[in-house]
């Protein structure tokens, strides 16, 4: 597979380490009410779709960027690649 790195262009997926669903960006607030339930869902339940999947890849043998890759799990076609940091900010993560 090739991942079209937003800064570096197409790179062999072998240079990356996979983590999983990009929903892992949305770590619950540990101090919030009902945090334990939220963490159990966050930690253990996955949509696992057959089709479009947003997922986290780390460019370990490259620039050390975490990427959010939108990939079809049936065809492996990649439709979008973004820096995870940008996605996280856009989706409301900060400090």
């Amino acid at each position, binding site marked *: 597979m090739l991942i079209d790195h937003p800064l570096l262009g197409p790179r062999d997926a072998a240079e990356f380490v996979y983590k999983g669903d990009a929903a892992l960006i949305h770590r619950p607030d540990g101090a919030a009410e009902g945090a334990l339930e939220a963490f*159990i869902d966050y930690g253990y339940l*996955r949509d696992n779709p057959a089709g479009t999947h947003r997922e986290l890849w780390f460019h370990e043998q490259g620039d050390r960027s975490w990427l959010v890759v939108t990939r079809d799990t049936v065809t492996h076609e990649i439709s979008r690649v973004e820096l995870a940091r940008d996605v996280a900010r856009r989706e409301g993560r900060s400090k």
Partner: protein
Amino acid sequence: MRYSGFRVIKEALTGHRGWGPAWRDAAPQDAYDYVIIGGGGHGLATAYYLAKEFGQARIAVLEKGWIGGGNVGRNTTIIRSNYMLDGNEPFYEFSLKLWEGLEQDLNYNAMVSQRGILNLIHSDAQRDAFIRRGNAMILNGADAELLSTEQVMARYPFLNVNDARFPIKGGLAQHRGGTVRHDAVAWGYARAADQRGVDIIQNCEVTGFRIERGRCTGVETTRGVIDAGKVAACVAGASSRLMEKAGMRLPIESHVLQAFVSEGLKPVLPGVITFGAGHFYCSQSDKGGLVFGGDIDGYNSYAQRGNLPVVEDVCEGGMAIFPMLGRARLLRMWGGLMDMSMDGSPIIDRTHIDGLYFNGGWCYGGFKATPASGFAYAHLLATDRPHPTATAYRFDRFAKGRMIDEKGMGNQPNLH
């Protein structure tokens, strides 16, 4: 019809005209007591044990394509019970015992071949961990033997010790481990279940569940609605896709595991051997092909095919311990879909929907579990209580913090 050597001779002399279908192609009826979704090894075994051990009638197995076309038809055929944790070891040992009597039970030669499995040890820390595991096996009634480097070399004299990057420091052997002719497991269970009246319905895909007031009363299929007293999902590899139709999210990711077979070679490997410092395991089939594999590709996939990096990684492992393999040729590679669970262990449990049961999350270890999985699932379906060897395989173990994590990798399915 009973299979036997005499029968084979008789048929040979009479032009093989007497052999009937190994199982009937059943058409779906309107209702069953039990509808098992998935005609793989586990589903067929479940049907068989439901009928045989629990005296249940009116059972259907619904298969989307052809029976045995999933992971029971594409795996590396290994059976073993060399697990470490209490939640697992009794179950896999139960499975191994069922394998040991399988052929006589089914009257089908699935070639259960207990030529042993050997895990190589490459460091002192690894030896410590294997000793702990071997003791856990023995304490659970299984067999295990710690082999010295010399004993390992006596069994596999062509292992690389001369210029090995990671030295071989012995091995943990389970002599009762081995291999089974995988397709024959599906066919044997299918034939035996069929003989006990189970309807095996091929080309019948479940498209939805009938759920009324929190109770599952049947399934919608490409061949019509089928009412059911109990519905049993058993489609590892596609569990999330199926259970989504019942509104469930699972602690499972689907991943692809590649496996490989070489051209047929004169026998060199007596049993199954695993490399402990890389990702490689290998056995040799009765036809002579080296059957080998390694890690999953590591990304969510439903594509049933993998990519080159893992192929290369696996062959590197092979060459590291068996440098004689260089000139043997890889004949075929394929990818199977794995239900990778969040702790590397399976689930056999009721769901929050009455009448709907779940069996899945087998990671890449489902084949060896086939008999016990079928038996335990049948037990659960028939009695609504978990089988004593499968009490830990519950959905709620994650919420409760009772993970069964053999590899200690945590909620990272691609590392199990």
